[in-house]
């Protein structure tokens, strides 16, 4: 395939992460490309959360390599990840209900004008632009509090917040888990637009319909190992589910063999 000749935006090679005796990640290879949506699927405990937390800098990897645009990098904290252009939208969204849309989008990175005052006009303008670029049209006013928004609108705000920072890679953790049908569609459209705008997107999801609707590629994790990678248009849901539940492991947990020795 063509994109394999190009450099991946983010590439993990043989990444290990242990928590005491538990091998949460056991030699995982993973990559995501600019302009593509990579779905990360797997059963509970497969290591999806650990993997994205390693990329986000919340966990530090024990072994293996992380490459960003082909260059080896080490991510030791959320700040390192943010500097590279990696933003994560967690399932709980981390929005403050009592603040409005603009205030949430700039929380912790407020713009200042003279005399160290908040530059509300500039922040509001940029927030409107980002929401417009993402075609988020359902939010009537960027000055309404997040408490008054629907679940899908909140998700849109959280995604827009991530995009605001010229990020290159956006990781979405179960973005549709708490949403109804119409709002799920809103969010999936938004995910697609992120990729069309030239961002790399990682979508963590349990929902096969969502995955097949928006993902270009699918990486399947099982018991801390990646057991399969599919191109969405060349596979079907049955194949993916099979890999999730019975994908072939290169080492069996509990046995002390070193897979990548």
């Amino acid at each position, binding site marked *: 395939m063509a994109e394999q000749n190009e450099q991946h935006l983010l590439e993990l090679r043989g990444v290990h992460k242990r928590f005491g005796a538990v091998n949460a990640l056991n030699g995982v290879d993973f990559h995501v490309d600019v302009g593509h949506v990579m779905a990360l699927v797997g059963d509970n405990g497969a290591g999806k959360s650990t993997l994205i937390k390693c990329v986000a800098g919340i966990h530090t990897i024990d072994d293996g390599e992380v490459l960003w645009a082909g260059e080896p990098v080490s991510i030791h904290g959320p700040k390192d990840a943010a500097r590279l252009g990696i933003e994560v939208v967690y399932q709980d969204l981390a929005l403050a209900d009592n603040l409005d849309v603009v205030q949430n989008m700039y929380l912790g990175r407020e713009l200042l004008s003279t005399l160290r005052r908040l530059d*509300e006009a500039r922040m509001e303008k940029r927030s409107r632009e980002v929401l417009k670029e993402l075609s988020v049209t359902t939010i009537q006013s960027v000055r309404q509090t997040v408490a008054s928004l629907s679940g899908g609108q909140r998700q849109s705000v959280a995604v827009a917040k991530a995009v605001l920072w010229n990020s290159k890679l956006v990781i979405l953790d179960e973005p549709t888990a708490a949403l109804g049908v119409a709002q799920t569609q809103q969010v999936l459209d938004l995910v697609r637009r992120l990729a069309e705008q030239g961002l790399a997107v990682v979508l963590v999801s349990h929902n096969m319909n969502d995955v097949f609707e928006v993902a270009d590629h699918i990486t399947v994790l099982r018991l801390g190992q990646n057991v399969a990678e599919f191109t969405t248009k060349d596979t079907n849901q049955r194949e993916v589910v099979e890999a999730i539940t019975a994908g072939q492991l290169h080492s069996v947990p509990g046995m002390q063999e070193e897979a990548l020795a």
Partner: protein
Amino acid sequence: MTKVFRRLAEGDLGVVRVILVIALIWIYFQANNSHFLTAVNLTNLTLQTAGLGMISVGVVLVLLLGEIDLSVGAVSGLAGAVVAVLNVKHGWAAAPAILAGIAVGAAIGGAQGAIFAKIGVPSFVVTLAGLLAWQGMLLVVLGKTGTVNITDPGIVDLANKFFSHAIGWIVAVGVVAAYAASNLSRRRRRQAANLPVPSLVAVAVRIGLVAAVTFAAILVFNADRGLPLAVVILLGFVIVFDAITLRTVWGRHIFAVGGNAEAARRAGIKVDRIRIGVFALASALAGCGGILLASRLLAVNQSSGGSDTLLLAIAGPVIAGTSLFGGRGSIWSAVLGAVVIGSITNGIDLLSYPSSTRLLVTGAVLLAAVIIDALTSKRRRAVGR
């Protein structure tokens, strides 16, 4: 019209609601005693509310965090006592004594805030311990005499000095001009950024209302003894802290921590630092309030900052719409709440009802305010879904 009612019901117009309540209280007392709305009595009313309002400014900051500070009454008494004892017994000049009193407040608040933020003891418990301890410390500082009378004009003037008519008008014109300038420049900045702006008429109406209230107040003050220094001090603090909470990063982060501390932490906000800073500031402001109260009483005694000081200082902002659950409210609620409570106290004294009536009425108003707060936030949630 129905739109106005809906916004009232949803709590958007919290300030208007409180002003309506104040108007009702004033109409009731005026109907029952024609002395209530005289210049002398209204001036007394503002002097009575200044100390409590100052303590409430700090309380609002703590409430915005979603925390509570039960020690503000005791700290206000202790700070007043420190100032009085240093000034009277140790011969310190007024200014350094006052600064020492405020510094004692800030240190106490910083310590309580650190115990809450770093060790994780609930603020309710830390400040409850403070309430007891600082009352004890007040007795220690006052020593055997129990009462210290203040005569130094540097302290007495704070609550007993009045400005001349001319200065009153100059202050009023300055306040209105500054308000108009800030409104117009904000409108201009939004216009420059191609954002929707309020119509010039709406801005003019707002400025006109503020001007009307300001000039009416000066007319009333000048019909009596003049603009009181205590009012200038209190409103100065309120305007400064209102700007800090609404226009600075630090203020924004207080709201964020009060609304969702975990989101604030993930946004890179140093939550502990915000909490400790707010508690330190709240206690320092309680100290300022205590100094105003001491100045008005011309003395500090063993009951300074005791009895219902704490409860009224917290009840005021809540009556005026600041939420007990964090993240919602404004510095102005400190003043408006103090005016509601002060009006009830003043009016009931005028009608020479017993103080049991005062407590019952204030309690009922507080309960009504909290119920309205609960109902409006419920309604807001319902509308939001």
